[in-house]
């Protein structure tokens, strides 16, 4: 038995002992809520055990999460979309109420998508559905994206620069936009004035990456704080002064 096996079994032993104490003392209720807290604590610790080393507990928790998320999504799609919006209206079609007959068209297109998984003899049908999705998606996305992400973004960059704090901000934004665009303009050699602008562009990019990285650290720590708060407050039932 090597050191990793020893750590693994010690972890299981401590976890089991803590839970026996929590259930025996009544800190965790012996019902579905208590069981849920116990499972959630076990899975949280299993996932964080990866920080020590990859191990079977981490693999188990990771695969369990994927499975549960897939099942939950299927449940939501079935009960809130497929059943009320597709299956029920189509099953109610009769000679008198034919208002929902059009639903057969998207339903058939949906089935055509699934033929991609079948034998080559039928898989060509999926191209009809994909053509519809690509055509519709492009038609919707191209004008909206240009309007929202290009034209609307250009407008504030082109405002008049005023001699106040807002004007300084606008000037910095203008310099940043131009310099970064120059950096990504590869048709001219980056020497002389173009080289200087390109260099300034790199600095703006570096500052942007730094800000993104800082925010990412903050986000990941927030998630860790949330889980630690759960473990201390809900699993170990500690009366924390803040949580």
């Amino acid at each position, binding site marked *: 038995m090597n050191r990793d096996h020893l750590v693994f079994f010690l972890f299981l032993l401590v976890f089991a002992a803590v839970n026996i104490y929590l259930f025996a003392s009544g800190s965790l209720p012996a019902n579905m809520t208590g069981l849920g807290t116990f499972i959630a604590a076990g899975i949280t610790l299993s996932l964080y055990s990866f920080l020590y080393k990859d191990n079977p507990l981490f693999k188990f928790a990771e695969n369990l999460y994927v499975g549960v998320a897939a099942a939950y999504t299927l449940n*939501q799609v079935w009960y809130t979309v497929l059943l009320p919006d597709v299956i029920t209206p189509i099953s109610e079609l009769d000679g008198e109420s034919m208002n929902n007959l059009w639903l057969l068209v998207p339903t058939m297109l949906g089935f055509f998508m699934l033929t991609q998984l079948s034998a080559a003899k039928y898989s060509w049908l999926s191209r009809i559905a994909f053509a519809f999705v690509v055509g519709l998606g492009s038609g919707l996305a191209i004008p*909206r994206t240009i309007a929202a992400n290009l034209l609307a973004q250009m407008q*504030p960059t082109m405002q008049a620069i005023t001699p106040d704090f807002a004007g300084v901000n606008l000037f910095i934004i203008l310099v940043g936009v131009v310099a970064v665009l120059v950096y990504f303009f590869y048709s001219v050699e980056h020497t002389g004035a173009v080289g200087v602008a390109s260099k300034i562009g790199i600095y703006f990019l570096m500052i942007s990456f730094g800000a993104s990285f800082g925010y990412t650290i903050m986000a990941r720590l927030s*998630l860790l704080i949330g889980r630690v*708060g759960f473990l201390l407050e809900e699993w170990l039932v500690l009366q924390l002064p803040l949580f």
Partner: protein
Amino acid sequence: MKAFLLNLDRRVIFVFVALGIVIPSLAPVRMPIPITKDVQAIYDTIEDVGAKNGTVLISFDYGPSAKPEVQPMALSVLRHCFRNQIKVIGMSHIPTSVGLAQRAFETAAKEYGAQYGEDYTFLGFKPGGGSLVINMGSDFHGAFQKDLRGSDTAELSVTKNIRGLADFAYVICLASGNTPDGLWIPYGQERYKFKFGLGCTAVMAPDQYPYLQSGQMNGMMGGLAGAAEYETLINASGKATAGMGAQSFVHLIIICFIVLGNVMFFLYGRQKGGAQ
């Protein structure tokens, strides 16, 4: 010591980070929470909506992985709305957010006595993305014929007067993905010109600032800090405010390690046998 610091095991950093979270959680460390103008803007808009008896739409677009950051925002915004007797309609572009949204509605509604159907409803998850937003803009009752409990949206008190997205006094997206800049702004705000606010994870926040600058959104809560600011504004300290002490403490630890790493690199890293 020099060799130890040059080849520091990453697990040592993990231990420091863990202690940096656990210790401030056990001992009360309250940090001052200054309010930024982007969070204040969301608060002010909701106050304004309350004065005009408007209706707010909240899109719950986050999964359990973003719960510690975004769920406090959801609770705070709902508490603020219910406190001001604002009608709230919830929906989701992401199936895994349904349970979280339901829990947030139940908690806030219970605290302020908000009634389902009269003061709020939750429409649940609907696929479609951009086409769903466009559909909601032109025919709200057609896009969501029934809410999650199966009530008809054309008859429900809270939804019967809503014809399209332009009828909402404020639309707030609580997100951990690309729904604000991928769906709500291009397909909704740009087209139907409603007031739009965002609560998002800290990872997303830097990418959303251009939309604040352009006025496509009027306010933003970014990460746990944004959630804590909103809790401070509504005088209801919650999990976000509680987490700020630990977060500040761990940030200091990480800054120390970054400084230490750079000092060791510049002193010895470039030499033979330096940092590995």
